[in-house]
Structures are given as C-alpha cells and as structure tokens.
C-alpha cells in the first residue's frame, strides 16, 4: 500500500487537538438507525457496520430506476443495469487501490473470497508434503479453509505463533515459511485484538520461497487507505458489510496472471464462452469467476459506501478510530480487574478487546446492553487465538466513523457499573 503502516504506527497521524473533543467523524444524522436511537452506543462495527442513508438511497434508486439482469438483454434497461454493475466495480477497485478492475471478483464477502482461493488455486497447486502457513491471529475464515485444504491433500498446516502483546513473532514466522510453503495466509488487521500486521515484511518472507500470499482484508478495507496494488499480495479479500455497504457483497482482488491460469470457481451462466455437450470453455475476467446472475444491488450499494468513506478521507478514518481506541484503552485500564489485550496503540486499529476478572464476557455485554452499549462478547471467530491467549472469551469494543468520545465514556462507565453488580468482590 501507499503508506504501508504509517497511518497506523504513528500516533501523530491524528490531527492535533483532535483527541480533545472526540467528536464523531461522520454525522450521526447520516445513519438512520443511529439517528433514530440517539442513546445507542454501537461499538460492534468490526462485526458489521451501520449504513449511511446514501447507501440505502443508492440501493433504492437502483431498484426503482435501473433494475434488470445485466449482460443478458439487448434492451436499454439491461444496458443501464450492466453499466451500473460495471461502474460499481470500477469505483470499488479504485477505492481499494486496485488498478485492474477486472481482477476484482465479487463474492458474498471475505469468507467466500478466501474459500474461492482455497478451492481453486489451492486445490490445484498444493500437494502432499507441501506446507501452508497461517498466523495465530486469524479469523476462522482465514484459518479453517487452509486447515481443511492441507488436510485434504496431505500438506502440513502450520500456525505462526505470536510474540509479545498479541503481535506476530516475525522470527518464528520467517522460520515457519520453509521452501515447501505454497501458501501464506494472514490477516491485514485482527478483528479480535486489533493488531495490524506488518504486511510488507510478511510478503517479503513469503516471496523468498515463492508462496502465494493471501491477505484477509476484512478489517483493513473499512479502516485505512489500503492501496491493494502496493501491498503486492497475490490475493486480497474483503467484506462490504464491514465498510458501510450492504450485506451479501464483498470481493477478492487477485493477480491477473493467477486468475487467468486458474480453473473457475462456480459454474453456470455468464462465466462460459461456449458450452458443448461434453466440454465447456470459460469467459474472460472477471466473468470467469462470477457464475450466475450477478448481484447488482450489492456493488451499487458498496460503491456508494466507498464514495462516502472517500468523502470522509481514509487517513482521517484510521486516525479517528485510533484516537477513540486509545482513549478507551486508557479508561478501561483504569478500572481494577480489567485487562486490555493486544498491542500498544501504535500497532493497532480501532478494536479494543478486554477481560474483567471474575466476570464472564457474556454477562458483561448483557449488562452493557442495558446501558445501550453494544459490544461483542465471545471468541470472535478466533478460537485458535483464544487458546493461545489462555482466555475463554473476551469483550470487544470496536470503533468506527460514527462513534465519538461519548461512546467511549459510556463504555467505561457501564463496565464499571457492571463490575459492581457482577464481580465477586
């Protein structure tokens, strides 16, 4: 990416004085659900985000004025739908910093994008005795598909372990990536701890052995100016619903040569060139990897979300999140019995995971909900990480553009109150 980890590593990315007032970056009024529930402190954006009115309007407008099956009709309305679909792909690719829009394949989300890579390139190229390396930080979506692939073909499945503070142990990682390694799969940012991984270092190590680099961008696309091209990874996966877009849409950006050399994923309409009785040939990119009637609504809504984020400025988005996260870490750590997990603020995004001694996260989040504070409690689809941290579950607050200092204060106060009620002493 353009500024690989600068925005994340340096606290000075936050404009001076910004910490002081803690206003939201995006007006709450832009988000109908939040506007209608002024006392809601929605702190679960790492799971899914609320939607700006502009995204909902884009969906509505599409169905009210442009809806048809793209690619398939000669009539004007179908041409309009085709153009809407095409234009959305171009806008989303541009937002992500992918210069070749045809290498952006639409999927349901990150999970499907990663499964696509595992079931096509992975099945064809990973053999018995090979190795697949993932990290201890991975979400199940970037863990189980590789574990199963390794299992299915008789390859070795290796988990690169953590060093201090929930960051990767880069020496151990380098040692894990042996010449037999065919795939290195890693998250750009952890949904469970907030850790932002050093992508450039990881990619350099993977490239030494010629491994396919697969980056789970579910927690980076929504939060930073990713610059996919400059990340120099082979595959990058993301989810629209985590970046203000509608549910059911996301994508995979993959190197053109690899997509072209790889067998297709799902088979059916739109992805074929010619269907013979016994043999079929494939269409060109991106169609080859998009079987069936495309979901036009999804890309149209997601493109509107990208426009909205662009209008805020991605540099300001990450700075804002980190400001709130730093404040939350400070306020939570001040409550006796609270342990904040993960690295110092310089190595993380807007996710704060913590435990409260003697209190189960589920009970904590239930009481927080009583105060209108929505946080996530559980294993965060990262059971392997939870095991390594020796915790059963954590409570997680995640911040986004519509959050402000008042949300942080409400969180900390509510945790303190819940502790009074629940803690053993």
């Amino acid at each position: 990416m353009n500024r690989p980890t600068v925005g994340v590593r340096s606290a000075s990315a936050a404009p001076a004085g910004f910490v002081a007032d803690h206003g939201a970056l995006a007006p709450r009024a832009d988000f109908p659900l939040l506007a209608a529930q002024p006392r809601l402190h929605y702190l679960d954006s790492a799971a899914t985000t609320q939607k700006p009115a502009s995204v909902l309007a884009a969906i509505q407008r599409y169905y009210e004025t442009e809806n048809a099956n793209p690619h398939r009709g000669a009539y004007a309305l179908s041409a309009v739908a085709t153009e809407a679909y095409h234009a959305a792909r171009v806008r989303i690719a541009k937002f992500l910093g992918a210069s070749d829009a045809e290498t952006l394949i639409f999927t349901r989300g990150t999970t499907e994008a990663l499964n696509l890579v595992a079931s096509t390139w992975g099945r064809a190229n990973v053999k018995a005795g090979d190795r697949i390396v993932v990290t201890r930080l991975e979400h199940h979506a970037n863990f189980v598909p590789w574990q199963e692939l390794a299992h299915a073909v008789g390859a070795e499945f290796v988990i690169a372990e953590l060093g201090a503070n929930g960051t990767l142990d880069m020496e151990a990682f380098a040692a894990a990536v042996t010449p037999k390694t065919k795939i290195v799969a890693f998250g750009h940012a952890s949904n469970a701890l907030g850790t932002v991984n050093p992508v450039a270092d990881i990619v350099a190590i993977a490239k030494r052995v010629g491994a396919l680099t697969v980056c789970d961008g579910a927690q980076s696309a929504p939060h930073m100016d990713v610059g996919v091209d400059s990340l120099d990874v082979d595959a990058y996966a993301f989810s629209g619903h985590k970046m203000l877009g509608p549910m059911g849409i996301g994508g995979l950006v993959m190197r053109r040569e690899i997509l072209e050399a790889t067998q297709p994923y799902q088979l059916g309409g739109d992805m074929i060139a010619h269907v013979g009785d016994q043999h079929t040939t494939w269409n060109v990119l991106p169609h080859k990897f998009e079987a069936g009637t495309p979901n036009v609504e999804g890309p149209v809504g997601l493109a509107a979300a990208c426009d909205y984020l662009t209008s805020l400025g991605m540099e300001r988005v990450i700075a804002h999140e980190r400001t709130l996260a730093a404040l939350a870490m400070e306020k939570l750590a001040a409550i006796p019995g609270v342990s904040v997990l993960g690295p110092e603020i310089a190595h993380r995004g807007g996710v704060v995971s913590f435990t409260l001694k003697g209190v189960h996260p589920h009970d904590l989040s239930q009481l927080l909900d009583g105060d209108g504070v929505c946080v996530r409690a559980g294993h965060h689809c990262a059971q392997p990480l939870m095991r390594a941290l020796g915790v059963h579950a954590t409570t997680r607050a995640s911040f986004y553009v519509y959050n402000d200092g008042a949300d942080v204060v409400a969180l900390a106060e509510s945790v303190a109150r819940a502790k009074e009620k629940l803690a053993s002493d």
Partner: protein
Amino acid sequence: MSAELDELYQSIILDHNRRPKNFREMEDATAKADGVNPLCGDQLTVWLKMDGDQIADVSFRGQGCAISKASASMMTQVVKGKSRTDAEQLFTDVHALVTGKPTGADVGSLKALSGVSKFPLRVKCASLAWHAMHSALQGSAAPVSTEAEGPGSAS
C-alpha cells in the same frame, strides 16, 4: 439498570455464579455428558451417580456465563435424590419457564431463572446444563449442543 436485567441477574443467580454448588468432577460417576454452546464456545460437563432409577449424586464443571453456571448449580441442588422421571420432568418445566411458556408447575427455587424468558438469546445458557444432564440420563456419549435451541446463539 432495567427491571428486566435486574430480574435476569437476581441475587440468587449472582450468588450461585460466585459460589456454585457441586462444582467438581466426580470420580465414581456412573454417567457423564458434555454440553457445548458452539457459537460462543461455552462448555460444561455434568456427572451423575445413579442408584437404580435415582440420582444419588450430581456435579458439574466448565466454562460459562453467570446464567449457565447458576442454572447448573441450582440444577445439581434440585435434582439430587430425584428419580430419572422427575428430573426429566423438571427439565421440561424449566425449559418452559425460560422460554416464557410456564406450565404452572412448581419449580421451587428454579423460579429465579424466569428472568431469562425476556432474553431469548440466553435460553441456551440457562438450558445448557439441563441438556447435558438429559444426555447423561440417556446414556448418550456424544456432546450435546444447544445450537438447535433457538434462533441464534451467543455467550
């Protein structure tokens, strides 16, 4: 705090959570079953010592929230000494209670669990130990899952 939350976290529940009864493994159990809530990963084990048709002893251990721990703890107190049939009936009655369809049956101190009915996602927590006990009574070896319990899950 809302009245509903106060009812969910009654002091008897919080007491059982802090100092659960029969929270131990059992060496000489005649039956045992694991219960797991897959989406949250909470997990507990219930041990039974049967004396013919009667539950001579019962204990549990595991990871869980206050609701699941208190429910398990109260369960062990109440079913000890009961017949298989009475224990199963109690499960049915408690399940009805926490899903907001009380049968009118007298469930004694277990009435403290009635607050759960206002929180559908917590039904799984409250019933986890009961499912495990039921499974142990049936002599089933496979861990039970509460996933099929309701519309979703959490913990």
